[in-house]
């Protein structure tokens, strides 16, 4: 199956052309830069976490379609989640992308992410898909360390 039908299928293209939660937060509780040195992709993640809940999330990304779409989907899914829930979702997504035996299944509420499974055929690009999520992990960690600021 070619990427034009698969990797770039509707969901990804939709998120790529219309990235959700694009932009910056003026006074975030956490702000993290992510870089993929191999391809130069860069990304800034802004988080507003209050009372253990992700109240706002925004992203500015300079990267490929996979990177942009992946970040957009992530922001949509994690907005409003508790830190624990968010960590679980990140964990599940990372396992899906890295697991070689295709054993990780996603619950219905995360079904959008299925669109990224096709990326696994292209090892070079798995990193592109993971960059926003790894950056998020760092952001959640920072937030946890200083939960009230």
């Amino acid at each position, binding site marked *: 199956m070619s990427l034009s039908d698969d990797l*770039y299928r509707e969901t990804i*293209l939709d998120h790529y052309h219309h*990235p959700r939660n694009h932009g910056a937060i003026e006074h975030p509780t956490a702000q993290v830069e992510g870089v993929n040195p191999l391809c130069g*992709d860069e990304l800034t993640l802004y988080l507003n976490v209050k009372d253990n809940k992700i109240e706002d999330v925004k992203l500015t990304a300079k*990267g*490929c*379609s*996979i990177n942009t779409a992946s970040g957009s989907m992530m922001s949509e899914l994690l907005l409003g989640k508790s830190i624990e829930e968010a960590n679980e979702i990140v964990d599940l997504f990372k396992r899906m992308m890295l697991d070689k035996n295709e054993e990780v299944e996603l619950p219905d509420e995360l079904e959008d992410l299925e669109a990224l499974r096709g990326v696994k055929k292209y090892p070079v690009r798995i990193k592109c898909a993971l960059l926003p999520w790894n950056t998020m992990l760092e952001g959640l960690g920072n937030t946890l360390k200083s939960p009230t600021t």
Partner: protein
Amino acid sequence: MTKLNVEQIRKDFPILKRQVEGKQLVYLDNAATSQKPKVVIDALTEYYEGYNANIHRGIHTLAEEATDAYESVRETVRAFIDAEHTHEIIFTSGTTEAINLVANSWGNANILPGDEIVLTAMEHHSNLIPWQRLATERSAKLVFIPITEDGQLDMAEAKKLITDKTKIVAVTQMSNVFGTINPVKELAQLAHARGAVILVDGAQGVPHVKTSVRDLDVDFLAFSMHKMLGPTGVGILYGKTELLNAMPPFQSGGHMITTVSREKASWAELPWKFEAGTRNIADVIASGKAIEYLSALGMENVREHEIEITKYALEKLSELGDITIFGPKDATLRGGVIAFNVDAIHAHDIGQICADAAIAVRAGHHCCQPLMRDLNVMGTARASFYIYNTKEEVDLLFEALKEADKVLGHVAVR
């Protein structure tokens, strides 16, 4: 049509029959590595099935045969680059090792604090980082010849930057991004006039342009066989006799010595002084076949074919309104390497959409991060041609880029 019979040539390259998910492979990643004709592949099999043995000092028949075959490639290479002596040809594992050898052996013997090493803004990491490390270790200074708008060396600046402080000029013969063919002969004159030596990174140049080290009057030339129809794992370092003789060995071990005591060793003559340990015998022998293949085609004809296909590609791709093509506009000033971006589409996405159409192009910084920064891009896509590429393949690339533009283009830059 040019003097190369491309249809005939294609039959010599088994991989060109390859299908990728049902589509015919279009291989346009030749600047990364070229494909190999059957004679080269068969030379490996013939060696391993017929006369595989460790070379030098062996008295048995296989060892004699292997030594003969290995050493005769030195003469093949000498003739190909028009060097004066066979012993000026050193087999390395690649261009990268060849440049590391010079930066290490010549560099440590010749570079003093305050000395200047002149590079260009378009160097590949392999002809940059070894000099950075040398400069750091020896408190020398790196100086960069800038480039003009269309990716050529600014020779007016070069004349100012090459001074009495310059100890070496290290420059690429052909840019692996712009395709620019640099005025190496003129740079050699500038260097020599100031008492400096010149090293030429021929990784992209030698495979595509007839190269005479005597005509260019360069002191060192480094190139890789895998980019010119040969197997992976073989590079060549050419060096002038006096320079090589005065240099200490780079790596040390078996076969590069005359006498060894517990405490010290004396070095073998050229070229063996620089060839420590068991060499990549099979691949050197197969490299000889690659050079013979190119010589039989004639490097002038190779060049003519590449100019023609590059000219065609430059014109064709320009029909895409949204494309940025880097490097000289005139195909006669450049080799068959075309780096480009389409709209604001990420190079990886272009690469991927081409890959879906079974077209192999490269995407990224092409081991030229400083140049990418100068150009203010994160990376580019790159198509690069060789003797077996056709205009029809350029058309297929064009179609894939149109598709990419349709699917992913016209995005506000974020």
